[in-house]
């Protein structure tokens, strides 16, 4: 539909603006329950009004028509005509969702979900108490002074117009001469001015209009066309029309005198009365009809996906939008710069002593500059976590209503920043965790009272920085994890051996195992048992770590640790033969010397190592990656204990080297994806070191064990 590229750009702005407007409406509506202040309602109204205007202007008629109903309801609410009920708020919230869907459908040129639109429209009309057909943006044009029937077929030969404007006319910049010029375009015009009301010169106000006119317009012209020319006239102006050459029409307005006759005023009154009685008739007719009881079935509320990934805030906060590819290109360059710089520092050792000092100074300056550049560039990708937290007031509101639980949501540390991609990817897992806490963690008001707690449960979302990571916590003061139940279920599912002893913490973290759920019934909210393990896997894929701490009867806390950025890793360099590998520090639990007594063999083949109470599979990197190791036997090497997905393994290496920050370079885009390898980096001396993908490693080891066992 959009022809012009410029128009297409403007329409893009409209879509973005509408989404922001809908967000504003939603948070306004959520805040409306507590205190219905007029500023809030007006803001909500304006947002709807803007969307209506824009959608009509840019050709999205259905959006405009739907928004009109919303706007009408909001208008009544802000004028105090309609009370702000929770039913109305709920309907308006659903209307917001529907509009979001309509906007994104319009953007993607997808068909609309008409049933949903009709259902919510029905709800709105039910509240408004009218049964009228969806009102289009323009109401029926107010009838002008005449009751003359439409003059489609028989146009008079001309018109005589008596025109006496109000004194103020010129101050409103409504020039009579302009109107005459427009009339001239319709037909031949004769103008006679009447200066009878002109006062003496001393009393004359030069800005006022004292003149009136008699006009004769010749030609077959419809009254409507003339009305359009005069449509901006104040109702105080006097306009009187007489048809020429059609004596059977024009009831009553027969005078031709130059001076204005208050026929206009009388005609106006009667016209107004007629209009009034007409609307009264329609109103009573519609009230008699049965109001439609279309109960909108809750549209399946899949958590609103992060459809609009958090963009940079709009203009007024002094920021600009930057294309992600540009930023990624800069980050890549900075990575190269760091590698170059670290190469140069190694080089400095072979230079003449005189130049050495200057070179060293230059290099340390370079190091400082690059570090600063790196930090500021990383900042570009950082966004506050509020972008993810912002979905939750709505989610908690809707879910608590649905489950019949009373919940207060507290947010802490919304300003804490993290990488945009990490933010986008952590959003859905967070939603799952919050829904879980609401569904399974928090008790119903009755149970809470019975347990001596307050009726209203609390869910807290918090974020803060710690070291080079961001910690996100989801806390609830609900019933906590029932360890007995969990252990029993785990034993039933054979996830835990019948005699195996587990610590409290280990039991709690069992809920992250695939297929695990102690929910009695699978609710559509959560409880299918596919959630928690996916959550954990998503977090691990981000290079992060998740744990749950729980106290029965008091509540639970889920703690997520995530790296601040995906491009840089804090890694432990390890050596296997001549090769250097890197293991993420986040994945390392501890590193130990191998002692022969602790080694054993499972089924005669796979090696295991006994670490306190558990048996860790031993992964020999030299075997896995096919490189020549140095250590002749296992016990000569070092064992790096790593953890992922709740499982641990011991990685056998020859030597531990330094710990350092490395820039992750994608293997996939430079070569191809390799199992067990997460990426690569270039070390200061120019050698390539491969970064080990710990979760992948552990998964493949588990598979191998199963296969070996079966064999």
């Amino acid at each position, binding site marked *: 539909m959009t022809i012009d590229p*410029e*128009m297409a*750009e*403007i*329409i893009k*702005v*409209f879509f973005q*603006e509408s989404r922001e407007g809908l967000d504003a409406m939603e948070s306004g509506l959520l805040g409306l329950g507590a205190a219905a202040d007029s500023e809030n309602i007006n*803001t909500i*109204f*304006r947002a709807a*009004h*803007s969307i*209506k*205007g*824009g959608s*009509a*202007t*840019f050709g999205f008629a259905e959006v*405009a028509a739907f928004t009109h109903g919303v706007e009408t309801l909001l208008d009544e609410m802000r004028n105090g005509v309609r009370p702000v009920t929770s039913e109305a708020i709920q309907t308006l919230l659903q209307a917001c969702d529907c509009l979001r869907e309509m906007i994104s459908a319009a953007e993607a040129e997808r068909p609309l979900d008409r049933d949903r639109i009709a259902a919510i429209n029905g709800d709105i009309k039910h509240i408004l108490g009218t049964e009228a057909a969806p009102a289009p*943006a*323009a*109401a029926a*044009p*107010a009838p002008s002074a005449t009751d003359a029937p439409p003059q489609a077929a028989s146009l008079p030969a001309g018109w005589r117009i008596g025109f006496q404007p109000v004194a103020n006319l*010129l*101050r*409103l*910049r*409504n020039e009579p001469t*302009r109107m005459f010029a*427009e009339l001239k375009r319709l037909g031949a015009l004769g103008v006679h001015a009447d200066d009878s009301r002109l006062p003496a010169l001393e009393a004359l106000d030069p*800005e006022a209009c004292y003149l009136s006119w008699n006009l004769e317009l010749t030609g077959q012209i419809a009254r409507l066309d003339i009305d359009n020319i005069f*449509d*901006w006239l*104040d*109702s105080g102006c006097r306009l009187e029309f007489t048809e020429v050459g059609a004596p059977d029409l024009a009831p009553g307005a027969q005078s031709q005198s130059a001076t204005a006759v208050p026929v206009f005023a009388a005609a106006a009154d009667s016209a107004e009365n007629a209009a009034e009685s007409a609307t009264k008739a329609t109103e009573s007719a519609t009230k008699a009809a049965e109001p439609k009881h279309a109960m909108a079935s809750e549209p399946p509320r899949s958590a609103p996906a992060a459809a609009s990934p958090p963009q940079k805030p709009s203009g007024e906060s002094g920021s600009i939008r930057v294309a992600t590819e540009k930023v990624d290109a800069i980050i890549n360059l900075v990575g190269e710069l760091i590698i170059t710089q670290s190469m140069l520092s190694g080089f400095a050792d072979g230079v003449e002593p005189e130049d050495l000092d200057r070179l060293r100074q230059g290099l340390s300056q370079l190091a400082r500059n690059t570090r600063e550049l790196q930090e500021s560039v990383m900042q570009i990708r950082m966004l506050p976590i509020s972008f993810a937290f912002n979905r939750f007031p709505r989610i908690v509101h809707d879910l608590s209503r649905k489950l019949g639980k009373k919940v207060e949501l507290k947010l802490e540390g919304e300003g804490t920043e993290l990488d945009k991609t990490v933010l986008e990817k952590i959003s859905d897992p967070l939603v799952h965790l919050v829904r879980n806490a609401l569904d399974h963690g928090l008790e119903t008001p009755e149970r809470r009272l019975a347990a001596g707690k307050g009726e209203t449960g609390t869910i807290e979302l918090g974020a803060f920085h710690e070291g080079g990571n961001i910690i996100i916590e989801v806390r609830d003061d609900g019933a906590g994890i029932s360890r007995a139940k969990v252990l029993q279920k785990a034993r039933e599912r054979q996830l835990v051996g019948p005699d195996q002893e587990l610590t409290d913490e280990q039991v709690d973290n069992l809920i992250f195992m695939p297929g695990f759920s102690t929910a009695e019934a699978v609710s559509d909210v959560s409880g299918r048992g596919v959630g928690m393990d996916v959550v954990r896997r998503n977090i691990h894929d981000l290079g992060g770590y998740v744990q749950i701490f729980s106290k029965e009867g008091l509540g639970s806390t889920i703690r997520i640790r995530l790296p601040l950025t995906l491009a840089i890793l804090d890694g432990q360099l390890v050596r296997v033969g001549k090769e250097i590998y890197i293991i993420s520090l986040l994945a390392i639990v501890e590193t130990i010397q191998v002692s022969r007594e602790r080694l054993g063999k499972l089924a005669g083949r796979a090696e295991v190592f006994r670490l306190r109470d558990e048996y860790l599979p031993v992964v020999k990197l030299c075997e896995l990656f096919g490189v020549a190791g140095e250590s002749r036997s296992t016990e000569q090497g070092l064992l790096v204990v790593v953890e992922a997905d709740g499982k641990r393994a011991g990685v056998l290496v020859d030597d531990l080297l330094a710990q350092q920050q490395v820039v992750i370079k994608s293997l996939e885009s430079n070569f191809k994806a390799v199992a067990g390898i997460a990426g690569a980096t270039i070390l200061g001396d120019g050698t390539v070191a491969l970064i080990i993908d710990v979760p992948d490693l552990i998964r493949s080891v588990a598979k191998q064990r199963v296969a070996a066992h079966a064999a």
Partner: protein
Amino acid sequence: MAKKILAVDDSASMRQMVLFTLQGAGYEVIQACDGVEALDLARNATVDLVLTDVHMPRMDGISLVRELRGLPNYKFVPMLILTTESSMEKKADGKSAGATGWIVKPFNPPQLLATVARVI
């Protein structure tokens, strides 16, 4: 000298639409996003036409028209309100505040240009 128009609307996409249309017809356009900003701009420049939306934060369009009419330079400047309201009250409010006329949204570019040409 090109005629100057002050366009006021809290919606960025509407402002852009109006800007695009009017500039394309050779007018010079300055923009404001609400009545307060518009009043500031108006005090520092004289325009040949004011085009304003009605519903805006901080100061709405009708109040803006009223304030502008109080400025000596704006006594005779044509002022049009852009509105989706087609009820008589809003138009009458506009009139009593001093507006020259109104344009009902949605409008298409030719409509906007024609109406502007009427008064500028």
